[in-house]
């Protein structure tokens, strides 16, 4: 066990993946000598060489498109998109090729590609550096989409993503990069929970709160505050957005009768919409209130001086909980 930040945990996970499988390659902008703008790939080029940790030209479509070719050749590319807002130049390759190639080839040419994307706000950055574009990817058949909320999961999940034979979009909650936890850096992934399953991170009987990535810490903090008022939140870390672990959430909602979904991404057509639709269908007779959603607004991510007003915080979570209870 070692106290490790999430950034370092992912670094350790990448290192292990590189050690364990010679077919694993890393590619991205500034991931080599610099070690990535968040230092997530720090030291890896030095130890694994330029052929395996590749500084790429400044072109996201090029990065993902060449990764497709490398995957066809039998490699397992792990590509880094430097910030959430820079994934869109690669969107065609992701949606048209990465996502569809396994089906197109009837399973003959799988696409074991991991696309790492630091996402979300809260770090006072300029435009395009704070977005939460996960719904675009979760809506896309053929992709898997996961997001860790803490260093322990990050260490396991990044390796599980790389080991998965399907393409995985791996969203890293950048404002939690510096969160620390005890991580067993010798743990192997065979014993870890599937990254495609949700986890109840705090049990409670009053209201179910489903969240993921950066919002898990926020919701846990809200649960602590609510508990002081006698409201017991059951906080579920979804971990995976595609597939979405509906059974775990449904089982919880059958107990609590109420669900609040929290994410930074805009509410309109965000993950909360899908969860609301599905849980309402599955738990129609258990619900005592409609599923309520807390998330970003239907606006571009605002200038950083306004981000605290934009981002869901403890108060907004509690407000939704109160409204759910008031139904």
């Amino acid at each position, binding site marked *: 066990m070692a106290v490790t930040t999430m950034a370092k945990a992912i670094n350790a996970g990448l290192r292990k993946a590189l050690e364990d499988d010679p077919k694993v*390659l890393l590619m991205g902008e500034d991931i080599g000598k610099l070690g990535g703008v968040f230092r997530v790939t720090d030291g890896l080029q030095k130890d694994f060489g330029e*052929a*395996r940790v590749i500084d*790429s*030209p400044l*072109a996201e*479509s*090029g990065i*993902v*498109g*060449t*990764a*497709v*070719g*490398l*995957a*066809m*050749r*039998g*490699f397992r*590319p792990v590509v880094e998109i430097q910030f959430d807002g820079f994934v869109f*130049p690669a969107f*065609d*390759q992701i949606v*048209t*090729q990465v996502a*569809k190639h*396994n*089906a*197109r*080839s*009837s*399973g*003959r*040419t*799988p696409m074991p590609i991991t696309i790492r994307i630091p996402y979300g706000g809260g770090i006072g950055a300029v435009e395009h550096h704070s977005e939460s574009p996960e719904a675009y990817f979760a809506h896309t*058949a*053929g992709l*898997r989409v996961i997001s860790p909320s803490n260093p322990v999961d990050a260490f396991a999940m990044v390796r599980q993503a790389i080991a*998965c*034979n*399907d393409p995985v979009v791996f969203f890293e909650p950048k404002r939690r990069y510096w969160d620390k936890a005890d991580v067993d850096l010798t743990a192997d992934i065979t014993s870890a929970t599937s990254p*495609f399953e949700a986890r109840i991170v705090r049990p409670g009987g009053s209201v179910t709160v489903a969240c993921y990535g950066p919002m898990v810490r926020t919701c846990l903090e809200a649960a602590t505050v609510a508990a002081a008022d006698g409201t017991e939140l059951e906080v579920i870390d979804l971990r995976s957005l*595609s*597939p*979405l*672990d*509906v*059974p775990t959430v449904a089982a919880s909602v059958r107990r609590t009768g109420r669900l609040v979904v929290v994410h930074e991404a805009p509410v309109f057509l965000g993950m909360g919409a899908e969860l609301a639709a599905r849980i309402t269908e599955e738990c129609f007779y258990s619900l005592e209130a409609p599923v309520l959603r807390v998330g970003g607004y239907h606006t571009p991510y605002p200038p950083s001086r306004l981000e605290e007003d934009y981002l869901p915080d403890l108060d907004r979570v509690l407000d939704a909980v109160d409204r759910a209870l008031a139904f």
Partner: protein
Amino acid sequence: MTADGGPELIQLLTPEGERVHHPDYDVDLTPDQLRGLYRDLVLVRRVDSEATALQRQGELGLWAQCIGQEAAQVGSGRALAPGDFAFPTYREHGVAWTRGVAPLQLLSLFRGVTNGGWDPQAHNMALYTIVIGDQTLHAVGYAMGMQRDDDDSAVICYFGDGATSQGDVNEAFVFAAVYNAPVVFFCQNNQWAISEPLERQTRIPLYRRADGFGFPGVRVDGNDVLAVLAVTNAALAAAREGQGPTLIEAFTYRMGAHTTSDDPTRYRVAADLEAWKLKDPIERLKVYLARSGKADHDFFAAVEVEAQEMAVALRDGCRGLPDPAPASMFDHVYSEPHLLVQTERAAFETYHSSFVGGGH
């Protein structure tokens, strides 16, 4: 831009079937090999015309004809070694032929029974790519993989004149140049991107695009199978020797419509087509073979018979292609179980089975 390809056009066989020489490029083929190329060209054209007919008869949803481009495709395809890997667009039926992909496999895609059609690994040829330009980056990535495997094979990547305008194609040039990837970019300039003439994509000859990225570009007579073979051989050799990418512009003409859905009379004049017919890739090789005594009437007749037999088999094969099972659409969305797909598949199957006994 000159309509005849200009002085930079590399040619070894004139439209009149005369064997000419070029200071930098040549091929030395046995009569057998020459006859083999002729057979390739004729059979590929027959596949193409047969498929066009099948589309007209409603057996295919669509067909993208390759008529006129057979020499560009066969010449480059025959330059490949078995370990090389080809990335096609949707029109490389001649390349597919040289890679051993059965014509019926091509038809299965255009019939709509699959979005793929063959095993890329078995033929060292990727699936057809419909979104223009996407495959060029795959080709470079694959070539980077060869470098890492210390395999001295090479990749060939096909695309059209229209595709050169896409960002991805230019990014492929950047990556290939920066990593010195063993890839041959093979652009079939057939003068048209659906209804748009070359002038909508560039104001200089396309082979010169390579100048901007620091690797060689050459323009070859795309209707001259020998020149195409020679030029592709040289580019592949350079790639294998670690000299990185080459751009080949095969100057040719789309003699048919863009696809069977297209009506070229709306945008181009018949005279152009007539002029290009005089440069037909098959005719010139036939003249050369006949005049030089490398093939006789019996050979030509035998190829015709073979083409005829193949056509009959292709027609029957196409008509017999079964529709896939409905639930197969859920089969390979993921290669590992995915809860949503499992759920939807189960609901789909339940719903469908409700119709078996009568249904609504």
